[in-house]
């Protein structure tokens, strides 16, 4: 028996992962980018559109609120000066900004020898526990926090992006410059490992 593929969205369903940007919006963004390549002042609409989300992305990873503004400004400065290297990949422009933001964050924390902050939201942590099919209890909760704290580099980033920032696999693959299939496999293995450690 073969099930044919007629995937449609159920009415009233919330989209939990991925940026809500239509194809039309993405093309409009692309037009703004092309104008901004000639005249950086034309970049303003994108700056205003994405400032908050980039700020929150950075804020959730550092302690100092003021520093978050500085780094956010650095991100947009770098984006404008590197616009010539941007290629339209049928993804929102934000994915490219997040990639710059991540790099700026790492550089800034390294230079200033500051701590990387992992901001964990309890509700989103519960979603993660559902994903890996473990019971919701205090013991699992605190163990999972500990496991997340023990992650390094791209593993930590992957968990944060997927469960706390609610990014789609495609967006994460664009930000980390890894194939989407590679991201899925990596996440799968990471979750399995964490589940084993949780339940042991």
């Amino acid at each position: 028996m073969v099930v044919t593929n007629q995937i449609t969205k159920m009415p009233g369903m919330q989209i939990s992962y991925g940026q809500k940007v239509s194809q039309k919006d993405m093309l409009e963004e692309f037009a703004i980018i092309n104008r901004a390549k000639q005249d950086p002042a034309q970049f303003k609409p994108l700056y205003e559109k994405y400032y908050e989300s980039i700020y929150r992305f950075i804020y959730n990873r550092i302690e100092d609120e003021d520093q978050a503004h500085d780094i956010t400004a650095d991100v947009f400065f770098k984006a404008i000066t590197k616009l010539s290297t941007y290629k339209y990949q049928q993804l929102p422009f934000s994915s490219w900004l997040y990639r710059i933001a991540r790099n700026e964050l790492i550089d800034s924390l390294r230079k200033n020898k500051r701590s990387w902050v992992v901001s964990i939201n309890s509700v989103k942590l519960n979603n993660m526990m559902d994903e890996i099919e473990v019971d919701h209890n205090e013991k699992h909760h605190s163990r999972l926090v500990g496991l997340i704290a023990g992650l390094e580099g791209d593993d930590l980033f992957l968990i944060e992006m997927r469960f706390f920032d609610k990014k789609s696999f495609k967006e994460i693959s664009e930000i980390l410059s890894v194939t989407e299939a590679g991201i899925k496999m990596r996440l799968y293995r990471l979750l399995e490992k964490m589940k084993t450690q949780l339940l042991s």
Partner: protein
Amino acid sequence: MENKKIIIDRIEPNSAAIRSGMDFNKVIDRVAMPGKPWYTTKKIFLAGVAVVVIAVIMVVVSLLSEKTVVVTRPTKQTNEALKALSINKNQEAVAKKNNNEVKKDIGLAAAGAAGLTAFTRSNTAGNSAMRNNADQLLLKEYYEKQSVKTQLFSIDQSRDTIITGEQGTRLAIKANCFVDRDNKAVQGIVNIKLKECYSIDDMLKENLSTLANDKVLESGGMIYLAAESAGKELQLKKYTEIEMSNPSSEIMQDTSMIVFYGEKDRMGEMNWVADNYSRMAYPVATLIEGKYHDTLSIEYFAKEFRFNKADMIKVATDSVVMDWKVSFNEMRKPIGSSVGKKEEGFPEFMQLFKEGNVPSIAAASWSTPFRFRVIDKESYDEYLERYKEYLKLEDLSKGNYTMKDGKRVFYARPNAPFFIGKVGWINCDKYKGPMVTVNNIAVKMNSEKNEKVKLVFKNGNRPSIIKPRKEGELWLFPNIPIKEEVTIIGTYSKNGKIYTSRKVFKVDRMEFIHELEYSVAKERT
């Protein structure tokens, strides 16, 4: 990330607070800093363009003047090759005996050694260009007339069909596999065009060669496949493949033979692009929990997981279980290990799938106890047999791979068909193995600019056809194995006539410059 700090339920600033820190002017001022004007790059670019334009104008002006001198300088490599020429009398005798004409062209060698060959061209550029175009067209028409017979088949799109070509190519075409260029379904009769090229002559008639990005291939035969309906060109539906069987059982047994798709460049020369998984079918995605089983369409996996065929095959043969979870949204209760039995909800879940009402995985977060595992088709068939007795599931990830140095190496099963994913030129090929002792074969260029030269290996029934590269006044075929019997075939057109030449010889250790003797071509029947 040596220093980490965990903060639970951190309070984020509100939008107003965040936006109060925005200052676009500050960013723009920084971009336009005096020390680093952003437009510096633009100015440099414009200056560069101006220099190039002036240079081009100067060249054009000089070329249009009456006296034109074109100087060609052979490359250093050619100079070395020419200096290394050594033809002794014995070799000459042997060469003549084997019908090889080797010319010890002292003049050419001397000129080559001096590094210059000069031509003078008078100002008849216009007439010359017209004549060249006419000759090119004539050559093109010559090839078209020589081309292999096109076989026509009409099939009913609504049924599975098997086509067998005159030379034994067998094509198993599934129902409804063709769509038009806009990916719309096509009904009714579809006309299939097929050309079969299994001999060197047929391949040469179609001006084909066996190079994949300059790597030499051994060919097990080439076909051309096209489909049309009501005058519209058709293509294969995505994720649908035609199963092709080669007339030679030896080729079918050789699992290193794979499909290469032909792409012609602007000059009409063929380059082949490999499909490394063309001896394996798309795997079947099936639910294998407990006593329930069902299959998902390949389109579902390809779309939802962005898997291409290579990914699916790798996943199917991964011994670590790739249990991609399919989940419901918040409208259904999240099902974890603490809730109910695993079989609960399955019939409703499958019903939703059949109705096409399951949301996109990338879009939602939900969970079920059901796990879908992608397995290769042969394992699935075996599983179906065992399923009938409701046996407990074992590891069904036994795919067609082997372990080498800790890595999986995928291989096709012998006699596996060739899975064709698109129409056009299709080649059953493999890369020619490493050559032990090789030599360079040089052929003196004819003065006609539209000359085409190729070198052919027979390889038994797996011919290789190679295009040369230009080295000054020579066509160079590099790295040809010695003791190999090869044929050099040349063609050009001039003043409304086609000239051809063939030269057969065994490749020797000594370097030779070969010269082709041309005669007016007779039309082949």
